[in-house]
């Protein structure tokens, strides 16, 4: 679990009390936001949430990328989940040996990194180990971490929405990955940055999807342009872009219905949306944000391939990383497509969306698996 990304320890932040009123829920959100507002900056690595416990605060101090291998891992991460995982590993494998490598391979595979990639990584380490490049197990792990961070470094490119006005973001993805929730969180994020946001309820297919987006809009005091169930998605989003222009909005975030990448007809509908938008603004959509469920396995590659082909995806959001899934498939995605990963979703609250940070991500990937699987 990517625990250190959570803004609070789990016990103090149940998602909502069982008897939660809708009204209190909103208040709850705002409370969280009050605590959260300052650290919502981009650099996740340097922004431990104020609500963090001291221990969690501690574990989050990532080193400057230049010198990760030298500084003592244990020292830096003592008390963290990562450190616990590592120390468990050290206890079992204090020495550099093949068993340690096997365990690392297991960790990578169970994180959905993929067999081929995991094996390649571990074999690389094995070679270097035989050349006696590593002084101890810690050095080996540091090397692995460095390599993983290096793979994700190129895709850590934050979304800059200041280039156009209105900046049009089209959100796509398969069913149930969290598109609408992500839009709600994005709206909150950009509104908090003082931008004027408009949402377009382009999911006209799923029952009550429009309602869901409207609720998010109301929570964040952001206008939602909608026509209702079964309207033409392209026309809703077209209208929304017109509205966004006339109101001088900074950002338009358009929702679309979830669709499996294997459904040709529905995929064509997406390209139609993009086409129609170009009539108003030849450069729109400025960002096609594809949402990927972090629990997805190797199929994510196929999903991105299809969506990219049809609507030219320009950025990714990986959601649901607050569970035990580690979303290791992003390595495969980074390698194959090199699309920037803009955000990660870490919970159900409006503020649980963070800019992607390769180092923090890798630290979350490595620890929990170690010791967790036998």
């Amino acid at each position, binding site marked *: 679990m990517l625990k250190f990304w959570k803004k609070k320890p789990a016990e103090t932040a149940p998602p909502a009390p*069982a008897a*939660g009123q809708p009204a209190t829920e909103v208040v709850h959100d705002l409370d969280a936001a009050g605590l959260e507002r300052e650290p919502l900056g981009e650099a996740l690595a340097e922004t431990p949430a104020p609500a963090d416990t001291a221990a969690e605060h501690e574990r989050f101090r990532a080193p400057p990328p230049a010198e990760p291998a030298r500084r003592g891992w244990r020292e830096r991460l003592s008390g963290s989940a990562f450190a616990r995982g590592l120390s468990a590993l050290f206890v079992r494998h204090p020495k550099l040996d093949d068993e340690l490598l096997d365990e690392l391979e297991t960790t990578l595979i*169970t994180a959905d990194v*993929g067999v081929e990639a995991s094996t390649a990584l571990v074999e690389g380490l094995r070679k270097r180990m035989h050349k006696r490049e590593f002084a101890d197990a810690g050095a080996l792990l540091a090397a692995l971490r460095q390599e993983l961070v290096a793979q994700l470094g190129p895709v850590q490119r934050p979304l800059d929405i200041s280039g156009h006005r209105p900046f049009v973001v089209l959100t796509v993805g398969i069913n149930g990955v969290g598109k609408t929730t992500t839009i709600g969180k994005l709206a909150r994020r950009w509104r908090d940055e003082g931008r004027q946001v408009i949402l377009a309820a382009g999911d006209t297919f799923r029952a009550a999807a429009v309602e*869901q987006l409207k609720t998010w809009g109301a929570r964040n005091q952001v206008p939602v342009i909608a026509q209702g169930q079964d309207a033409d998605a392209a026309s809703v989003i077209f209208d929304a872009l017109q509205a966004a222009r006339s109101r001088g909005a900074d950002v338009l975030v358009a929702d679309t219905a979830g669709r499996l990448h294997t459904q040709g007809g529905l995929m064509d509908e997406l390209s139609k949306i993009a086409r129609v938008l170009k009539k108003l603004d030849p450069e729109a959509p400025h960002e096609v944000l594809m949402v990927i469920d972090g629990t*997805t396995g*190797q199929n994510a590659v196929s999903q991105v391939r299809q969506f990219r082909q049809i609507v030219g995806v320009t950025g990714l959001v990986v959601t*649901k990383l*607050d569970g035990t899934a580690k979303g290791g498939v992003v390595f495969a995605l980074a390698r194959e497509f090199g699309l920037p990963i803009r955000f990660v979703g870490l919970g159900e609250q409006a503020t649980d969306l963070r800019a992607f940070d390769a180092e923090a991500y890798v630290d979350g990937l490595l620890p929990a698996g170690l010791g967790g699987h036998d």
Partner: protein
Amino acid sequence: MFESLSQRLSATVNRLRGRGRLTEENIRESLREVRIALLEADVALPVVQALVERVKARAVGQEVLKSLTPGQALVKVVSDELTALMGTVNTELNLAATPPAVVLMAGLQGAGKTTTVAKLARFLTERKKKKVMVVSCDVYRPAAIEQLRTLAGQVGVKFFPSEAGQDPVEIARNAVAAARREVVDVLLVDTAGRLHVDAAMMAEIKALHAAIAPVETLFVVDSMTGQDAANTAKAFSEALPLTGVVLTKTDGDARGGAALSVRYVTGRPIKFLGAGEKTDALEPFHPDRVAQRILGMGDVLSLVEEVERKVDQEKAQKLAEKVIKGKRFDLNDMRDQLEQMTNMGGLAGLMDKLPGVSSLPDSVKSKVNDGEIKRMIAIIQSMTRKERRHPDLLNGSRRARVARGSGTQPADVNRLLKQYMQMEKMMSKLSKGGSKGLLRQMRGAMRGMGGMGGGLPPMR
């Protein structure tokens, strides 16, 4: 995507078929490949390890090594174990309870619970002629209740209204009471998606379960889930007495390893598959079919059957008789066998029927052609009749002549003769062994030969 898994497995299978004998070494190698294939299909690692262990235990035992066709036997073991893992027959919903029979849905966010409730409601109404009521206990996600209300309207079932402010347990209790009052057969209870690590939410669904005592507790899981499927399934099955699993989004191209993981971890049958956007896209799950789909074995097995059908039984019988009578297996017989191979549509034709072959790189495909067999036949035909009956006559200069005549190199002729000699040796052994199981063994001989020709894919 299923392709990729089956491609890997069938490649392994083919290699094994090419061998007359299996050693522990090549069994281990094959199992390694099976392991990789399963992992790439997103089957959870612990499940893969357990499965491979079981296969290994059986494979190094008598069953496979002593079999006449060890490769095939190993494949069978893998396929058996997969099928055993998946279960064999469809398990229906158990609604045998004093009405209303309550069905509780549980799962992660975005797994497809609400959609599944609607599909299930329609399924039970239309196919099972049940009177169905649905209720949503999702007071968290915006408009989740609205979504179920709309869907209930679409499929024409009763909807028990609830509101975001209410307590989920209270909603469920009231719904059960209402269902009883209105004499409904089945009450489907939708719940909020929850993470298994979220203690408060897991406690809530436990309380919900205790309050309404459902006859069925279905775990809804996305078929595209990766390694995490095992963790999630474990946590849910520990928290709730699950009775079944619903696998959703199976109309995508995921390899569906999650099905295996969840089934293994929970030990509960997968009862339904969600396979589309429409409310009628829910199918009862037939495990045997899916196991075959995952393995891609269906095609390979039917190919084997086809080969058996097309072998010229008459000629085979004649040869068998000849061998039994103690007559010598000569080059004419060998040519007959080679011709039979080409009769089956040639290797290229056979290859096409193998799953996954189409995605092989061309460089690999081009190596597999019928040229080798044709060349072998040409060599035999360049011999005199006497030479064909008495291959011992073929000395150096005769071999050189045959090579020139068939447009090959003397080395090719030598290789053919070497293969002939091996076959001949086998045949003479057979003639001593009697006729029992002869046909089967002959097939073995053919396979052995196929494996020897450079680059030929093994034939059965």
